[in-house]
Structures are given as structure tokens and as C-alpha cells.
């Protein structure tokens, strides 16, 4: 559902487009041989090319091209075998060349689509306008020196993919779903680590409002937002701001606005804007970027199964609900974990254990999947113990807690604590007889027609056996005995 703002003069629909900047996973930078790793000491991952020393020239990194094509294929997009690098000219302290090498009129990837997953298992197609390669800028640090801004060029020249969506997004929730899905696909492809805290993924958010069904309104752009939550907050604030202006009879100025996550508001950056004119032209230090079909085919042959396909398979082949499948495929690590658990086992039970107990315990302890004390293999063995009747489902939960806290194997815990389920009919009969003898009044009531007392007897028998009795066997013996 789109977001509708009810104004005094009627309804307003929110229209959103996103430009996501995703750092390409590569060893070296887009046009130089210096490293891209995050967190290095200032200006240590900088070559003379990245610092734009006089006479330095760019040479393109093959991996950046590969990753862009790979991502394009993952977005089911048009791959352009001929594309052009342009210079985008502007001055800023952390832009050493005085221009950013980017792709303007002829990007490496054209139109594609992304399917986002909404509540209740619904999906929506969001159009991808294009994907292009460009250089990242350096970093200005404003708060480390009383009178100066300090510039670190470690990030200068790192390869970015700018992925531009069509203005198909209609609510903050859809925007969040879009970013999450895009992130998921990039991580499946291995083309971007999607780490928003480290700035590997940032979004420029374009927001406008209109009367439902009308032409698009004038948009404002909020740059460089680096969390899904902030993206949603920025959209809500900005859409309401625009509605307020329009309802008061004003007009929206097309401009770039800064989202202030501390104050939770957007504000004009016009002072910095002053007549942007990027003077794009083809970079004369480079030639057009060209490759053949074989190059694309080679990359295509190597594509992994992506979340949408995986989800379809989980639902279709494994019988998992669309909701659970969506949860399992969102992160490749989770999907891989789940598939390892489910291999040769009941997929539904496996899914329940991963989503229920495992996620619950990870959440409780603040651990990531990679840090899980329970490996997929061990969880699988636990499932086996349930399946072969060694332990009951209830006991299994106890065992899992113990596994999670101690890192011990399921079988060891079961053995140590003697938790094996009792399926021995003799022992169970004895327990039933004891329970019935001790509760003759209830037996009479049952026999008098009070059927629901069956549950009571079940509970008592289980209690008497310390929870280890096989509930199926109990049920089978208990009922005929009660019925007399």
C-alpha cells in the first residue's frame, strides 16, 4: 500500500525514487592499484593517481567491470557492451581531481527490475533505470581540528555502482523493502558487502508528493543516507514538509536537502548548491568501455541462485510457507545455514527450528549467525533426534538451549541428562495405571462424558515420566484404558 497523507485539502500520494551507491567488492580501486579495505590509517591507501597529482592517469580495474555486469545480470537488466566514462566536474576538498569519473549518457547497465517483498507475502516490481560505475570521493573530517577540515583520500577512487530506481516507490516501507532487497541481491552476488555502517551502501532519496493519479510533483533529493531507518524517517519528514507547503499554497523548490538524523529533519543545502553545472564530457584519458557477449556469458554462467529463485524453490519444492521462505532467503548466510540443516531432513521442521529457536536465541544474545554456537550440522542432528523419536519436541527445546549456551553436541546433552524419550509400552502402561489409580474421581467424570479431561490425564502421565514419555505412545494406550 502506498503512503497517503491526508491533508486539509485532500489526499496526497508520496512518490519515491532511490539512487543507491554501492561500493564494489574489489581488492583495488576503480582506476588505480591502491587498496580499498575499510578502516586504514589516513592517506595510506592512496596512490599518486588517487591524489590527482599532476600527470597521473586512470587505468580501469577489470574487477569493477565484472562486478557491474554481474550486478546488472542479477537485476535482470540490459547490459551495455559499449559504455562511456565521463567527467563530472565540481570542486570539493575531498574530490582531488576536481572531477569525478562517472558514466553519464552511456552507462554500463540499462533498465532492469527488482521485486520487493511486502507484508503478507505480497510483492511489487520496482523498475531499475540504470546502473553505472563511478569513483568514490575522499572523506572530509570536520571535528578533529579546531580551525581546519582534514582530508583523508583512502576512499578516493574506490569503485562505486550507482543504482538508480524508477520513481515506482510509494511509501517508506516500500523504500525500506527496496533497499533491503537490493542489499540482499548484492550480497548474494558478492558484488558489494552491503555494510551500511561502513558506508559501503548509501542512498540518495528523491521524494515528491502529488494528488493520487496526477503528474509527478517537484522532487527534493536527500543525499548520502546510510541506514534503512533514516531513509524511512527522512521520507516521512520530507513528504509531510512538502504537503504542508503545498497545502499552504506554496511551491516546492527542486533542491538537494540534508537529512539530519539527530534532529530527524531535512533542511536546505542551497548555500552549498549554488548553480551546479557539472559540465559532463567524455574523459579524454580513457576510451569507451567495450566487451563482447562471451564476457557477459561467462559471468552469467557463474551467477548464484538469487533470493527470488531460492524463495520459489523453498516454497515449491520444500513446501515452506512464502513468509518463512522470505525470512530464510533474505540473507544468503541464513539460506545457506537453513539448507545445510534441511539437507536430507524435513524442511518444514528445519525451517521452524532455524526461524524459531535459532533466531530467538541469536536475538536474545545479540549474536550474528556467523557467531552462532550451534552449527547447522549440530542443529540438523538435533532434528534427527526428534524425528527418530529419541527426544520429544519439548525436550528438544531444552536441549537446544543447552547447546546454544554450552556449544555441546545434542546427542551428548541427551545422553548426559538421560533425556531419551520413553516409548517402552510397559513403563508407560505402569505410569498410566498409577495416574488413573490416584485420580479415580476424574476417571469417573471422564467416563461420565467429560471428554476434555483426556488432556489432564495426558499431562499427568507426562509429568510422572519426567516429560520423557513418547506422547504418541501415551495417547495410544491412555485412551482405551480410560474408555475402560
Amino acid at each position, binding site marked *: 500500500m502506498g503512503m497517503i497523507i491526508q491533508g486539509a485539502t485532500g489526499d496526497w500520494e508520496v512518490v519515491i525514487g532511490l539512487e543507491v551507491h554501492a561500493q564494489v567488492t574489489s*581488492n583495488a580501486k576503480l582506476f588505480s592499484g591502491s587498496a580499498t579495505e575499510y578502516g586504514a590509517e589516513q592517506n*595510506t591507501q592512496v596512490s*599518486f593517481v588517487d591524489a590527482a597529482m599532476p600527470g597521473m592517469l586512470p587505468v*580501469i*580495474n577489470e574487477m569493477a567491470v565484472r562486478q557491474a555486469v554481474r550486478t546488472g545480470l542479477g537485476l535482470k537488466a540490459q547490459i551495455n557492451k559499449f559504455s562511456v566514462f565521463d567527467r563530472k566536474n565540481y570542486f570539493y576538498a575531498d574530490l582531488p581531481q576536481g572531477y569525478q569519473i562517472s558514466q553519464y549518457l552511456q552507462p554500463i547497465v540499462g533498465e532492469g527490475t527488482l521485486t520487493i517483498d511486502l507484508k503478507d507475502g505480497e510483492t511489487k516490481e520496482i523498475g531499475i533505470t540504470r546502473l553505472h560505475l563511478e569513483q568514490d570521493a575522499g572523506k572530509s573530517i570536520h571535528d578533529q581540528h579546531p580551525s581546519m577540515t582534514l*582530508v583523508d583520500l583512502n576512499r578516493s577512487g574506490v569503485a562505486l555502482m550507482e543504482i538508480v530506481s524508477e520513481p515506482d516507490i510509494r511509501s517508506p516501507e516500500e523504500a525500506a523493502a527496496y533497499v533491503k532487497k537490493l542489499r540482499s541481491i548484492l550480497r548474494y552476488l558478492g558484488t558489494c558487502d552491503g555494510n551500511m555502517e561502513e558506508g559501503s551502501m548509501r542512498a540518495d532519496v528523491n521524494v515528491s508528493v502529488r494528488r493520487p493519479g496526477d503528474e509527478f510533483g517537484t522532487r527534493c533529493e536527500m543525499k548520502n543516507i546510510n541506514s534503512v531507518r533514516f531513509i524511512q524517517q527522512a521520507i516521512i519528514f520530507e513528504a509531510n514538509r512538502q504537503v504542508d507547503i503545498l497545502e499552504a499554497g506554496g511551491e516546492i523548490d527542486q533542491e538537494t536537502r540534508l537529512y539530519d538524523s539527530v534532529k530527524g529533519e531535512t533542511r536546505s543545502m542551497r548555500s552549498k548548491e549554488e548553480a551546479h553545472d557539472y559540465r559532463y564530457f567524455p574523459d579524454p584519458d580513457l*576510451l569507451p568501455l567495450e566487451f563482447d557477449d562471451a564476457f557477459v556469458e561467462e559471468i552469467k554462467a557463474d551467477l548464484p541462485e538469487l533470493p527470488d529463485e531460492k524463495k520459489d524453490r523453498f516454497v515449491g519444492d520444500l513446501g515452506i510457507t512464502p513468509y518463512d521462505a522470505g525470512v530464510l532467503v533474505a540473507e544468503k548466510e541464513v539460506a545457506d545455514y537453513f539448507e545445510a540443516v534441511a539437507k536430507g531432513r524435513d524442511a518444514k521442521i528445519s525451517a521452524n527450528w532455524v526461524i524459531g529457536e535459532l533466531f530467538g536465541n541469536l536475538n536474545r544474545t545479540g549474536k550474528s549467525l556467523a557467531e552462532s554456537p550451534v552449527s547447522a550440522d549440530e542443529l540438523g542432528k538435533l532434528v534427527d533426534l526428534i524425528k527418530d523419536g529419541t527426544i520429544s519436541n519439548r525436550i528438544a527445546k531444552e536441549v537446544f538451549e543447552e547447546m546454544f549456551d554450552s556449544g555441546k553436541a545434542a546427542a551428548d546433552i541427551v545422553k548426559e541428562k538421560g533425556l531419551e524419550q520413553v516409548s517402552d509400552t510397559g513403563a508407560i502402561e505402569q505410569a498410566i495405571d498409577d495416574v488413573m489409580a490416584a485420580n479415580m474421581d476424574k476417571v469417573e467424570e471422564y467416563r461420565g462424558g467429560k471428554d476434555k479431561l483426556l488432556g489432564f490425564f495426558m499431562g499427568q502421565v507426562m509429568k510422572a515420566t519426567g516429560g520423557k514419555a513418547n506422547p504418541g505412545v501415551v495417547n495410544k494406550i491412555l485412551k482405551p484404558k480410560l474408555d475402560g
Partner: protein
Amino acid sequence: MSLDKATVAKVANLARIRVEEEKLDPLAAELNAILGWVEQLGEVDTENVKPMTSVAEMQLRWRQDEITDGGYQEQVVANAPSKDEGFFAVPKVIE
């Protein structure tokens, strides 16, 4: 197309070149003379002509994704007019 004083000022600002007020007019005249002379390019038929992209008929070469450069902070900032602990330093920017 003719440049006026205001346009020259705007272009100078885009190019981040400080031009004294009294120089704007003479500069506009010079630039107009050059641009006026360039107008003759309009006589050339360039219908269906592609802009020149490269002299040699060659393809863009790609480098391998290997770390072959960097790791010399001292040399990177050696020529900086102002620096601080391996950073370049510029007048404080207020965002």
C-alpha cells in the same frame, strides 16, 4: 551567442577563478571575439558524424584487480601546503 559580464562572472565562479570586477568587461569582449570566431564551425555539415573518441583504433585496456600501489602516506602529503598528521588540511568547512 554572446557573453555578458554577468555570464563571465558566473563562468569564472564555476571555474573557481577570482576575477576582479573591472576585468570582467574586457574579458567578456575577448571571449566573445574567440567564440564569434568559433561560430564558423556551424558551417560544417556534421549530420550523422560521430564525435571523435580516440585516435588509434584500439580498445580500453583493463588492469588486474591487484593491489600494486599506495602505502606511502608521507609521499602523498609531501607537497601539501597544509597538513596535519598525515591528513591534508583545508579551511574549515561548515556543512
